[in-house]
């Protein structure tokens, strides 16, 4: 019953990250019959399958696609290869010996010995329980992604009168989606003084439908015994505590939560990967290799992205890195990267000093900035000093470190990205 398989590369997750990584590994020399992708859902594509709105692919394909269309391009490419795919398959464990233990109905328990593993498990939504919302626990409180699945995949209405807490992209998208399906979205509350979503989504999903967005405002209490009957919302101060006297009762039957995404790193923790406390993903080098040799990570399991296009690009790097690792390439010393002065995190967290190509470092800022400079330094040397009109936590930024600069770096130095006055 306990089948043992051998593959050069096991990719955990068959969403956009996993597919791009597997294809890139093949393109970079891993024999395609030696690659396997394990996907827990009934089909490849991951969360894109329920994202039926458009806006995907503008960067990568130069055209505007829906989520399923974007996924389909990669599914077709996968179909043209001999890359093995196991659907409905959940990975239970990975080991420090790069062994993957998974289970599905067809095969039962499977053990796979791998030369390299790519973690592409994506992320999950923060639930209500993680927030300090008082009140009852009726039906009708769900994450925006759950509601999206009910509407777009299952074809059922999860509610008729909604309040949305959190202005992350999924929350904004669902405000529009519920409205189009005939529900009334009464308000979107955002506890921060700015939205965590993309500007284009605020315009296209809220403004175009006259849905109010209330900043520095949160749901403080949920009412209703069986199903949600209403919520109390209130403005918050700069410590994000509710301001007495600003409470307002809003009748509704549904509360959708879009209050943050958490990289799904339970497997990463099983093998004690070095984790980044800010991204909540593993720390990686520029090839997206984690602290365990031969284990790579890409996509939302590494850092929550705004655009799937960037997920694809990042995953192609991880696929290439895994291919190089499988072919025997090993690196030496690294230089660390970090953010300061408003830069919350950097990915990758380190760069191999033997890197021959330019490296793109992604980062996010901690609050909204206008007319500042992004400055990248290494030791005394300023690598980049670029003016930015606007920086916001909802938009991932990047800078490119030139190969010729990397060639001059030493392991005792660090690459620092900061926000400075213009």
């Amino acid at each position, binding site marked *: *019953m*306990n089948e043992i398989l051998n593959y050069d590369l096991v990719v955990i997750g068959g969403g956009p990250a996993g597919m791009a990584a597997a294809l890139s590994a093949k393109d970079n020399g891993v024999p395609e019959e030696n690659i396997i992708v394990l996907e*827990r859902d009934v089909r490849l594509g991951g969360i894109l399958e329920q994202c039926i709105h458009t806006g995907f692919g503008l960067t990568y394909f130069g055209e505007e696609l829906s989520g399923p269309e974007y996924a389909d391009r990669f599914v077709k490419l996968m179909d043209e290869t001999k890359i093995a795919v196991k659907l*409905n398959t*959940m990975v*239970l464990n990975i080991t420090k010996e790069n062994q993957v*233990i998974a*289970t*599905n*109905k*067809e*095969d*039962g*328990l499977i053990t796979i010995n791998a030369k390299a593993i790519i973690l592409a498990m994506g992320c*999950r*939504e923060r*639930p*209500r*329980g*993680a927030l*300090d919302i*008082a*009140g*009852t*626990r*009726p*039906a*009708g409180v*769900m*994450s925006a*992604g*759950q509601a999206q*699945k*009910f*509407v777009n995949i*299952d*074809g*059922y*209405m*999860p*509610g*008729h009168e909604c309040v949305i807490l959190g202005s992350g992209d999924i929350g904004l998208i669902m405000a529009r989606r519920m409205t189009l*399906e*005939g529900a009334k979205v009464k308000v979107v509350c955002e506890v921060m003084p700015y939205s965590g979503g993309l500007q284009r989504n605020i315009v296209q999903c809220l403004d175009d439908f006259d849905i109010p967005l209330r900043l520095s405002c949160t749901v*403080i*209490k949920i*009412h209703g*015994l*069986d*199903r949600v009957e209403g919520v109390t919302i209130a403005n918050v101060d700069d410590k994000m505590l*509710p301001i007495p006297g600003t409470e307002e009762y809003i009748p509704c039957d549904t509360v959708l939560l879009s209050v943050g995404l958490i990289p*799904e790193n*339970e497997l990463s*923790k099983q093998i004690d990967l070095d984790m980044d406390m800010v991204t909540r993903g593993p720390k990686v080098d520029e090839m997206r290799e984690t602290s365990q040799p031969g284990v790579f990570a890409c996509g939302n399991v590494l850092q929550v992205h705004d655009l799937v296009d960037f997920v694809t690009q990042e995953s192609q790097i991880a696929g290439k890195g895994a291919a190089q690792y499988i072919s025997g390439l090993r690196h030496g010393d690294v230089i660390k990267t970090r953010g300061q002065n408003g830069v919350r995190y950097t990915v990758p967290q380190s760069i191999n000093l033997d890197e021959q190509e330019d490296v793109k470092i992604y980062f996010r800022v901690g609050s909204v900035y206008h007319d500042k400079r992004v400055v990248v330094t290494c030791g005394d040397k300023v690598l980049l000093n670029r003016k930015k009109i606007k920086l916001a936590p909802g938009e991932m930024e990047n800078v490119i470190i030139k190969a010729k600069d990397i060639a001059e770096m030493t392991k005792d130095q660090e690459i620092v990205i900061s926000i400075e006055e213009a």
Partner: protein
Amino acid sequence: MVYDIAVIGAGVVGTQIARNLSKYDLKVALLEKESDIASGTTKANSGIVHAGFDCQTGTRMAELNVKGCRMMEEVATTLHVPYEKNGSLVVAFSEEEMATIQDLYMRGIANGLTKDELKIIEREELVEMEPNIADEAYGALYAPTAGIVSPYELAIAAAECAIGNGVEFLRKFNVGGIVYEDGNFILGAKDGRVIRAKIIVNSAGIFASYLLENFNGEKFKVIPRKGEYGLLDRSVYPLVTHTIFQCPTEMGKGILVAPTTHHNIFVGPTSLDQNDNMEGKHDVSVRDGALRTTYAEAQKSVPSVSPRDQITSFAGLRAHWIEHDFYIAPAKTNKYMINLIGIESPGLAASPAIAECVENMVLDTLDTKPAKKAEWNPSRKAPVFFRTMSPEERAELIAKDPAYSRIVCRCETVTEGEIRDAIRAPGGAIDLDGVKRRTRAGMGRCQGGFCGSKVMEILAEELDQPINEITKFGRHSDIIYERTK
């Protein structure tokens, strides 16, 4: 339908009473107003099997607590219910508080605990047992026989055992009125169903005093006392391994930091008296800001406990009789109605002893002693817990039924097979929360975000219902409505 006995309330007490009575040739009905077992006080309980040193000496509470604690391990083991004798610690934060610890010790001995069951320990030993305890911790009262049990799983297991032995489980039977006529009680449910019974066991929790008063006017002042909890991710374990109480002060009993049998850590409960009316008896809302102060208080014992690790919060109600004792007695006007009033903490710990006590009262009440069933099964079918199985056990299980190879709940590693078992069990789950309590699907860090709709699909299939009729916990707790346009 005339039953010999109708047990009202399928909480941890009512279900164990039903189980004990199922040993005899008696027709027993177990009535529950909600859609599932363990839907009231039992589901929002700390899960602590108190050793019995805390109750006032000489009370019924003290007697049944000490006895119940000694019975719990066997009951839980027999019924395949998660139980752990993890021991409890009452932590003192000053030399003065050690005097209170000494008093508690003496009270425990007076309550019948032996010197093996209670021990006063110094800081050094305390730190060895709980390395994350606060620097200010001075010493503690250690009760090695105190334990933890999963309260709702105990109730579910006892009910499954009872039903397996012939007890009839009537769910959504919300007793509206009770009258006594021609040697029978007539119990009317609010939905119109009517049953008759020769004896009533009124174990309706916070509603027990209400039912009694409506029957014959007997009054008990029972206050719904709210307790709010924060529940933390399993990854925090072993932050603490024992149940950590704070030394009681004039301000109250303090906040606990303790593990559950599934190794979540919880903080709480708070203590808030609500109005003794229907609104107060139903209000299980968590107050705004209540958890902020709860964590602050909990950090007094364990400084590193943090709301950042919280996965859910909830509140429960305990039936606080102002006399602060268990009242277990027949109605003054009718010896055939046995009432259980004020079953609050340590009611869970005492529950096996309460059940035995009520069983004997029922036997004494009956004119002719019933025969014991020749083939009474003290247990139930052991549930599968895939998550805690070894790879060999998993392989063996999957070989028998591939449904156990499909993981439905990622966070708690719950398989489709376990969910189907939970629905098919006697008195099985009919809604999302019912599946959650039996299998833990949806109890993890994503709180059902991933598995919720998958569990609904399985429920719909097993119960042959449209998926949009599957509820969270019965009544009008609909999760989804009509089809999209």
